[in-house]
């Protein structure tokens, strides 16, 4: 079982209230990480309006992520990308029953506060938007609403978890329709997990201390992760997923689920594509079903991919060193 404790005694996001049937606690680590558990083996889809959110829900998405523009359009538009319009987020919250997430800029504490007040179910502190603070991420323990963060390596993931992230998504390169970067980063995290697990199994605590220093995190979280042999929170794959086969491949690498950004609503067959990616994610272990899913889409209608080497803007690098 993934550990649900990991609580900080100074977490300001925890709220204790008296009710008729006794005390209730909100914003605990169990509730935040537990929320992410309920998304496991599912697909979270980027949407920009009510119509897309309803297509996502009907296709079987476990949640929708509201943006002002899809990542590929953010890339085209340039300029500063900020959190989505609150009015649109509220419209979507009032039209689907599945959880609604929204993105805030890295380090932008008040975009996050605004999203928490809006009552979104999870906040994505995301590199798809223009970072507001080059040196700090949000101290997420101050919030009652859970956060998800991106990571390209184990050290990045553990730093985000220590800041209070309840869920991690391994970064790809958003808005490219190219799954290569997502694959690279998941494999990197997996390799690093194997490495610290073997150090843990060998009983060499000194080497674990060395890893903690290298990762710039506490010894405790390194030890906990090494013992588990996986991240202590739910871990999804994201960035560049465009087809059912992409989704199934990432699931096979050990991810708990999938975020799809531009891949669905920038394709010409959004409905079928949404459905087929959900099917492939659920039944990734059955190649025959993945084939059936892949058959539902037409490659000529897939979004045109981008070669990551030619990109001027690498979103994945944002916030990575902090």
């Amino acid at each position, binding site marked *: *079982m993934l550990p649900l404790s990991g609580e900080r005694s100074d977490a300001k996001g925890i709220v204790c209230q008296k009710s008729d049937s006794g005390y209730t606690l*909100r914003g605990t680590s169990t509730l935040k990480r537990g929320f992410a558990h309920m998304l496991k*083996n*599912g697909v979270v889809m980027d949407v920009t309006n009510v119509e897309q959110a309803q297509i996502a829900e009907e296709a079987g998405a*476990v949640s929708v992520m509201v943006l002002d523009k899809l990542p590929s359009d953010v890339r085209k538009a340039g300029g500063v990308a900020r959190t989505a319009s609150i009015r649109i987020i509220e419209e979507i919250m*009032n039209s689907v029953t599945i959880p609604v997430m929204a993105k805030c800029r890295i380090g932008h504490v008040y975009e996050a506060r605004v999203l928490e007040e809006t009552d979104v*179910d999870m906040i994505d502190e995301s590199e798809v938007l223009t970072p507001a603070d080059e040196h700090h991420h949000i101290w997420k323990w101050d919030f009652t609403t859970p956060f998800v963060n991106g990571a390209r390596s184990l050290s990045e993931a553990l730093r985000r978890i220590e800041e209070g992230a309840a869920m991690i998504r391994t970064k790809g390169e958003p808005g490219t329709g190219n799954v290569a970067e997502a694959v690279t980063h998941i494999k990197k995290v997996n390799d690093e997990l194997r490495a610290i697990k073997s150090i843990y199994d060998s009983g060499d605590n000194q080497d674990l201390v060395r890893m903690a220093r290298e990762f710039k995190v506490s010894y405790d979280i390194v030890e906990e992760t090494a013992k588990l042999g996986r991240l202590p929170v739910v871990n999804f794959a994201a960035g560049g997923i465009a087809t059912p086969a992409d989704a199934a491949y990432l699931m096979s690498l050990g991810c708990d689920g999938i975020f799809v950004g531009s891949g669905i609503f920038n394709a010409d067959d959004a409905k079928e594509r949404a459905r087929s990616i959900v099917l492939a994610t659920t039944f990734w272990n059955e190649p025959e079903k993945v084939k059936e899913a892949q058959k539902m889409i037409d490659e000529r209608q897939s979004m045109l991919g981008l070669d990551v080497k030619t990109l001027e803007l690498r979103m994945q690098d944002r916030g990575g060193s902090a």
Partner: protein
Amino acid sequence: MSLNVGILAIQGDVQENILSTQTALKELGIEGTVNGVTTPEEISNLDGLIIPGGESTTIGQLSLVNSSLKKIKEKIENGMPVLGICAGMIMLSKTADDRVIGKTDQPLLEFLDIKIERNSFGRQKDSFEADISMDLIDIPKFNGVFIRAPSVTETGSDVEVLSKFNEKIIAVKKGNVIGTSFHPELTYDVSLHKYFVNLVKQVK
């Protein structure tokens, strides 16, 4: 005699329920295996099934795709014990409305004569932990973990109410079928899983 308990592994909190059930079997000294199940064939061999928490719209639609929904229905009608947690309880119900959206058109098993209000306590920020009790099944104190939890707003005459919190019904039972709004797999207390395993053993 070894028990074969399955966790419906379409989507959601599957692994945690496998571990809680394994722990329950071990503490009770009962022999048995616990596996994630998805296909009608796997379901047909089960002595008991847990439908875990997750998104009920997703679990419903996808279990319809490979006809596991039909198989589960058949097994329940033949007396197989089922524990439905959160989304799982929604799946077992006859009608499910959303607190904000109202009527939803989602595939359900329609076994428990109950009406569900989805997201009854609010959105994720309102998710909470609290002590609850289920005296009818000898669990006087339990840490209830409620995540965007549903509640039961109406019950038919054959449905027993196991627990309430702030006047809302949060656990029900009809024969060998139990539904809860909260997540027993997200605590280290396995007493509800133990109660369920005992039920599976009695029926077998």
